[in-house]
């Protein structure tokens, strides 16, 4: 093999030495090796490919066509029995190039065999899941050794010009891949770190006492400081107003004598219902969900809010009916 590039160690020993037929088949497939289960697909691929006019004898035509399809389905070790015998006559002088176990698609090179475009397109895509990417130079001697597909020989030779098999997965690329993955992981961890899992804030739902404690027409401020909620009772029932001004988020004050909520920041004014009527507030105060707890107390649930301008005050959970 003509390896160039700064490789540190010599070629590792081939783990499982395949048989000569196996090597020949593989070379015919230009280094394509894929899992066995796609074998049915191999025949299907072979059909259209076999129809293509190829070079030399029909067996030779079938061979490159099938071998081109082969990359898609073929696993590392066993070539399909149908392909093997046809490949052997087609590739007499395939000198076994030293080749590690799996050599998936060195792209169009191998699959380009004999103009079998469709299998060619399928092969690289299917060969991707194949293990241990070692393309190109396997293709090169293989292509050179392939007498049957002359056209294929030209194309692979051109396409597999630069990256050697050994150089493709080098320490360099392993190192950079590991570094990038570690950096990406670190960045994700950093971002996640900024979102605390535990909040030391008052709970978002609370019980506000029994309904009888609220007088009709009154605004209850007992829960304003701790929970940010006003509880108001009208003839129909009880509703919970958010104490967040809809202008820019300050906390308004309830002015009982003037029967309005007035925000100290910019002067937004709201009626007892929460409707805005003066100042820069663009919309009414929001209401929270109210319900009756099991023990009969009023339960305020701040995780759901209802906005009047969206028509949500009509929702039955926005008002606890007490008639």
């Amino acid at each position: 093999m003509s390896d160039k590039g700064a490789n540190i160690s010599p070629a590792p020993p081939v783990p499982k030495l395949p048989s000569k037929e196996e090597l020949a088949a593989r070379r015919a497939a230009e280094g394509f090796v894929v899992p066995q289960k796609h074998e049915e697909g191999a025949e299907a691929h072979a059909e259209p490919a076999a129809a293509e006019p190829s070079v030399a004898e029909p067996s030779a035509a079938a061979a490159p066509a099938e071998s081109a399809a082969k990359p898609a389905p073929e696993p590392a070790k066993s070539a399909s029995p149908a392909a093997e015998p046809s490949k052997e006559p087609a590739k007499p002088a395939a000198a076994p190039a030293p080749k590690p176990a799996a050599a998936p698609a060195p792209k169009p090179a191998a699959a380009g065999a004999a103009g079998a475009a469709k299998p060619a397109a399928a092969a690289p895509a299917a060969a991707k899941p194949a293990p241990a990417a070692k393309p190109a130079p396997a293709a090169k001697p293989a292509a050179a050794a392939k007498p049957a597909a002359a056209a294929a020989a030209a194309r692979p030779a051109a396409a597999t010009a630069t990256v050697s098999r050994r150089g493709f997965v080098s320490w360099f690329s392993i190192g950079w891949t590991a570094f990038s993955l570690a950096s990406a992981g670190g960045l994700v961890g950093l971002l996640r770190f900024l979102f605390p899992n535990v909040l030391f804030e008052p709970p978002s739902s609370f019980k506000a006492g029994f309904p009888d404690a609220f007088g009709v027409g009154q605004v209850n401020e007992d829960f304003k400081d701790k929970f940010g909620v006003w509880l108001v009772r009208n003839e129909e029932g009880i509703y919970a107003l958010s104490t967040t001004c809809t202008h820019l988020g300050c906390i308004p004050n309830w002015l009982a004598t003037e029967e309005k909520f007035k925000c100290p920041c910019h002067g937004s004014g709201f009626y007892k219902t929460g409707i805005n009527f003066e100042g820069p507030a663009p919309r009414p105060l929001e209401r929270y969900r109210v319900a009756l707890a099991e023990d009969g107390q009023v339960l305020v649930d701040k995780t759901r809010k209802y906005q009047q301008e969206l028509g949500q005050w009509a929702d039955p959970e926005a008002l606890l009916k007490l008639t």
Partner: protein
Amino acid sequence: MALKNALDSFRQGQVWKSIFRHGPPTDRRNRGMVVLSNVFLHLHPIKARRSGIKMSYTWCMGGLSFFIFLVEVVTGILLMFYYRPTPEYAYNDIQQLGFDVPLGIMREVHRWGAHAMVISVWLHMFRVFMTGSYKPPREFNWNIGVILLVLTMLLSFTGYLLPWDQLAMWAVTVGSNMARATPFLGHEGPGAALLNIGGIPLITPASDVRFALLGGRFVGAATLLRFYVLHCVAIPFIAVILMAVHFWRVRKDGGISGPL
């Protein structure tokens, strides 16, 4: 006489020579050598153009900004000896820095310095624009400068919260409420509903960018601590790195304030 001899022999000694390697900067060569061999001085070029030290040319705003930044760092560190960033203590500590601590003016100096720095960086930017010092090859440095401007504003914003008074709390509430409306990343912004996994929303009031900034759903203890760390460590760290790039580029792009 004896004193002069003593001084001379001291200057010939190993202690002195190990610190001051070259002779006094009296001649041209030594002036250059002294600058080159000093880590602080070598950040400057050995020679500067005459226009580079003209106030009417440069306004000296860049240098002033850096100087004020150094003042802020020093006063800030001094403040850190007495300030505790929790809602319980923050306000009182700030009060105590004025009355219970000698030279109780650090807090004021720090605050005035912050205002001054904001003014000086804006004036610096204005000057750079008016003298055309953003044109090639200096365009990259202009961009670095804009980022530094944003960092200065962020330093002001984060520092504003630390006294933990009404002004601070509401200013940061209003300012951070803007983050709710960030596209995609804010829970009230456009496109937030698109980010979900199988119906579970990823961007809620408890998981959007405003939440990450505040460390909670509203300005509270977590926010105070977070802003403290940002103000004292994170943003100055990035700012120092970018300042190094900024000064480096001034030199490499042809020096301060020369004709194009």
